């Protein structure tokens, strides 16, 4: 780390009277983890990292070596915008390393770093802009249906007022934390909101998504509201997705852009897209990692079901948005299946790996599917060669298990742990008797 950068952090801690520095990192499932150190320990942490017992962190555990190092990434040091009476706090994202300083292969941030580095060796930097959807509910009661803000007279203010003021406060907070917002609006579903972030390189964006989820929940909680990124909380209402706008840059140039193509897509963009499509089923367990994720990926709610691409067809998996104006840097692909409950580090890693494979092996892009796929029957889809995304977590895991691409992108440690953990989740789900079954079979059979 550069000397000045370290000084900058230490001086800021001193000048701003920082009381606690929170070291942030992420477990394999994408949960934000944190431990706090005093300002006096910060210099030490920047120099040598802070060791802690990783065995309590999901996906970190290894029998022999449970101690790992959290090494602050000084670039991400940021004073937290909420101050309590006792003084200001700051946070810094950490890379996790083994005690000898080598990257710890259970750390999702290191996994993304590794994948970005291999793209960088080929001359590409990977940029992402996510559109993140989520719901506001009344604070949940275990075992009960979520209560929408516009129901039940929960608030004195009308629900639109409270929700839009929550959203405004959230955006203001995000912007003071180096996360510029492009767009925000109330989604179609009641109590659903969408905030679109401006594109950054994938590592910064994965950090931003972690910060985003934290800030949205935190600010909602301050107002006694529950924010959730659960992919499909309500049965007959569209779920929450995290569409990802993807582009590769070589230096200042957008490698996806070509002025000669009718869709402004370069051969690189087409190969990348072909890679995404060919490996989509394999990476779905990572981009959609919960049992509940697959209840979003059903026809009728603008969520993708089929593995196809199109310029204007929102039922496809990959959409090619028409850039505003003649803006070269805005040429991009929109990958529509991921949901906001994923681990962004791992999701970005497998997406990049799939796209890069397409570029390396010069995959041929299938023809565009511009008809509405939801209206076609299976036979017609088969004739067009259009497959479906996995229909359940179990199916997705089976496809993932056979994927050398995903194993390589995630590394063996995370690949194996993830499969094991998610198989358990599926087993738990399978033993559950649902309302659907009781309603359908209790009396009729």
């Amino acid at each position, binding site marked *: 780390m550069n000397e000045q950068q370290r000084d900058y952090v230490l001086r800021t801690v001193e000048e701003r009277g920082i009381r606690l520095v929170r070291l942030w990192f992420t477990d394999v499932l994408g949960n934000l983890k944190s431990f706090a150190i005093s300002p006096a320990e910060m210099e030490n942490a920047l120099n040598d990292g802070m060791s802690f017992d990783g065995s309590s962190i999901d996906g970190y555990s290894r029998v022999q070596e449970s101690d790992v190092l959290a090494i602050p990434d000084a670039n991400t040091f940021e004073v937290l915008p909420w101050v309590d009476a006792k003084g200001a706090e700051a946070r810094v994202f950490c890379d996790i390393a083994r005690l000898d300083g080598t990257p710890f292969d259970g750390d999702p941030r290191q996994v993304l770093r590794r994948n970005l580095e291999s793209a960088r060796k080929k001359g590409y*930097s990977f*940029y992402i802009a996510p559109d993140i959807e989520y719901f506001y509910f009344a604070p949940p009661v275990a075992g009960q249906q979520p209560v929408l803000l516009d129901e039940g007279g929960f608030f004195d203010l009308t629900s639109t007022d409270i929700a839009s003021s929550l959203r405004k406060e959230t955006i203001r907070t995000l912007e003071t934390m180096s996360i510029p917002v492009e767009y925000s609006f109330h989604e179609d579903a009641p109590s659903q909101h969408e905030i679109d972030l401006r594109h950054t390189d994938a590592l910064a964006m994965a950090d931003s998504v972690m910060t985003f989820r934290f800030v949205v929940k935190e600010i909602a909680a301050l107002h006694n509201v529950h924010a959730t990124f659960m992919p499909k909380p309500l049965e007959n209402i569209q779920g929450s997705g995290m569409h990802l706008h993807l582009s590769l840059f*070589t*230096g*200042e140039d957008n490698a996806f852009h070509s002025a000669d193509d009718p869709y402004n897509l370069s051969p690189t963009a087409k190969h990348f897209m072909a890679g995404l499509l060919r490996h989509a089923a394999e990476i779905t367990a990572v981009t959609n990692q919960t049992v509940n994720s697959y209840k979003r990926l059903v026809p009728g709610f603008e969520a993708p079901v089929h593995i196809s691409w199109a310029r204007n067809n929102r039922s496809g998996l990959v959409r090619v948005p028409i850039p505003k104006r003649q803006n070269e*840097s805005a040429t991009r692909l929109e990958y529509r299946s991921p949901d906001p409950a994923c681990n962004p580090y791992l999701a970005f890693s497998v997406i990049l790996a799939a796209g890069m494979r397409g570029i390396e092996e010069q995959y041929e892009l299938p023809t565009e599917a511009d008809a509405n796929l939801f209206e076609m029957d299976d036979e017609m889809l088969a004739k067009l060669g259009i497959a479906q995304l996995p229909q359940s977590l179990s199916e997705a895991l089976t496809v993932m298990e056979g994927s050398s691409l995903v194993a390589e992108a995630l590394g063996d440690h995370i690949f194996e742990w993830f499969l094991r953990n998610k198989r358990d989740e599926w087993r738990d789900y399978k033993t559950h008797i649902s309302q659907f079954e009781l309603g359908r079979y209790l009396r009729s059979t």
Partner: protein
Amino acid sequence: MADSLLAVFPSPAPIDLARTLDLAGYRWKAVASGAEAAKSEPTDGWAGAVVMCDDDPESGWALCRSLRKRDVPVQRVLVMVNGTQLADLEMRDNLFDEFCLTPFHPRELEARLRHLFWTQLTGKHEMLVEYGGLVLNLETYQSSFGGQALDLTYMEYELLKFLAQNPGKVFSREILLSRVWGYEYFGGARTVDVHIRRLRAKLGEEHANLIQTVRSVGYRFGQSKWSV
């Protein structure tokens, strides 16, 4: 200044330059490159440098850059350029403190050197950068806008510092990358745009236009002193 040492480029130093420095009582050593300057640097550092850019401007500027781009930059750098090279000075303000035209008049060079050392010795070195409501304290790394503390990450701070030190000037992304990030950057050239957006967001909507986008060129901070 009796025992401090100046680095002089090129090596060997032109005879008239050597004579002027000797007569004015400076101790100096000729260096041919940044590497050589680093190797033969006295333990207490170079007291300053005189860099003659007129014959080999590329190596001259490279030397200036290597003297400045390090943990403790060399203060008091005087560059010498000829009349056709004046444009080279633009956008390199951070690489020198004073300049002198060649062919030079020995009395002029002497006067400029004296003045350069006077300002630095009296501690007149600017530790605050101010523009409008923006204040950057270069010593404590703190920044504020309209009296409110501004919480910036290190790279945001460095970028804002560079821009605010050069108000009214247009910088391309490449220039900003090389001057602020020094080529070691992770996110590719779009990194500049990302950081500009973050700065605008932190300055707040009403001040976001403090940093303007100059179409197909780059960015400009504030107004030039000369255009107000």
